[in-house]
């Protein structure tokens, strides 16, 4: 492999990690509150509110049903507004967050729903307020499931980020498209795919290891 190519691929890995990690962080910043709202306001939740639940639910569902490639193109003006450009890895973060936040919201909601109803009942019997139940009971009890969800989200967002390579995004996806697809350099394509697989493995196994280490039920 030529040094230029190696350099190119190394930069690609860096860009991919940058896009994926930043997008996931921002997506969680938005997705966790949304997921908590969906969970709390559910008809069987801690504080049911049909109107709020329905509104947030519809927004989340609409965003989730738009295919990522279309969303990417659709929100180009918004992307330009936020970061000033539509090309490169920073520009890709915007659509990644828009696509991932609703996904994260549903992941968080389903993790919170796994918390044992009996534990919630005990917390309620002890005189906990809704906020105390969320912060001190539901989120900590759901921690292992939330961590697993984060690992899955990382892998999903990584997949999205590779797609962005088709429309001027950076990272390994762009390399695969530009060299592998447009220039028929199958070896470059293969290398990027292998690297993507390795990154997903690291995220997934790292997440699992973290869960195993921190889940107090597995002792």
């Amino acid at each position: 492999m030529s040094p230029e190519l190696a350099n190119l691929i190394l930069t690609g890995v860096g860009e991919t990690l940058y896009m994926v990690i930043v997008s996931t962080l921002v997506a969680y910043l938005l997705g966790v509150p949304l997921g908590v709202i969906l969970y709390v306001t559910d008809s069987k939740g801690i504080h049911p509110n049909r109107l709020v639940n329905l509104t947030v639910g519809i927004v989340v569902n609409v965003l989730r049903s738009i295919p990522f490639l279309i969303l990417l193109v659709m929100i180009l003006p918004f992307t330009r507004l936020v970061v000033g450009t539509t090309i490169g890895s920073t520009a890709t973060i915007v659509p990644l967050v828009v696509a991932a936040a609703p996904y994260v919201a549903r992941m968080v909601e389903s993790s919170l729903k796994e918390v044992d109803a009996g534990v919630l009942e005990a917390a309620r019997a002890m005189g906990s307020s809704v906020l105390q139940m969320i912060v001190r009971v539901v989120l900590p009890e759901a921690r292992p499931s939330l961590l697993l969800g984060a690992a899955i989200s990382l892998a999903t967002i990584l997949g999205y980020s590779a797609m962005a390579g088709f429309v001027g995004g950076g990272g390994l996806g762009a390399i695969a498209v530009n060299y592998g697809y447009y220039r028929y350099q199958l070896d470059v394509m293969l290398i990027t795919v292998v690297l993507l697989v390795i990154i997903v493995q690291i995220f997934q196994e790292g997440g699992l290891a973290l869960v195993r280490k921190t889940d107090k039920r597995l002792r």
Partner: protein
Amino acid sequence: MRYQQLATDRPQFRKARLVIELRHIEKTFRPGKETVTAVKDVSLVIGDGEIFGIIGFSGAGKSTLVRCINLLERPTSGEVIIDGTDLTKLSAKELRAARKRIGMIFQQFNLFSQRSVAANVRYPLEIEGTPKAEAARRVTELLRLVELEDKADAYPAQLSGGQKQRVAIARALASNPSIILCDEATSALDPLTTHSILELLRKLNQQLGVTIVVITHEMRVIEQICSKVAVMSDGQVVERGSVRDVFLRPQSETARRLIHPTPQTGLSAAAPVNTLRLAFTGEESGAPVISDLTVQCNAMVSILSANTENIGGRPFGQMLIEMPDDKAAQRRICDYLDARGIVYERGDEGSDRMPSPVDEA
């Protein structure tokens, strides 16, 4: 008012200050199209420092009823008066404060799985905003009370069932409640552990004066710690009184089915005509009644089942015997038992006796 009448009619209720008063509690659910009434017009009074049992078979409505006491289930109608305050009329904030005065333990323990034992016990103090140092001291004190000081840093998954329930008890006590509700708290435990948990509850009742409400389907639980009992069936209280009275002379079919030693030979509808259930109290338990009876009455009886238990510090026992077909011999046996003052029930009487309307509610 009806409830006041009740309080003056019964001396044992008059002397103790009332802590829990349930007035005409009704709870209906609407799971689908049809309405299910889980609790039907139940009124109960529970005095300060009592250990009060509520017993019934599955689906009798006892778990719903106990959840009406701390309003985990809001009654469809009726009043829940704790220490003179009607909880159903409180604001959300006032209700949360009231709940801190009512501890609760559960069949499945419901500990926080991601918190250590000490952090579980500390939870009620955290939400009350107790200063850290004071909370830590209190946690140590509570863990000592339930004899789990050495498990402070363990997590629930590392504990046995009995230990988990002890942690739950310590946690329930953290906010200094005057009442503890036990919802089938020993039903997931083996008999030996059940015994030790019940002894712990009795100790807390005696040392801290906390009022305890025990929900169970097991008569042995009631026998071991309760002073009074209410029997529930189909959402209603069908019988109530001191544990001694209900045990010796059960009036309702439900109580009889709960008490009788073995279901196969119990005096249910299909009981054989010639059976007798003998109930012993105190000193009679030790006396050789059956040998004496056989000699005195010149009649052979066979023992179908027998057991004795310690109830409230006094030995109680019951025995199911089968008499000979000879009517004269049967009369001699009954006369003998009457003469010795032993309480008994006949199988043929038991079967057609209807649940009596002892429910004051």
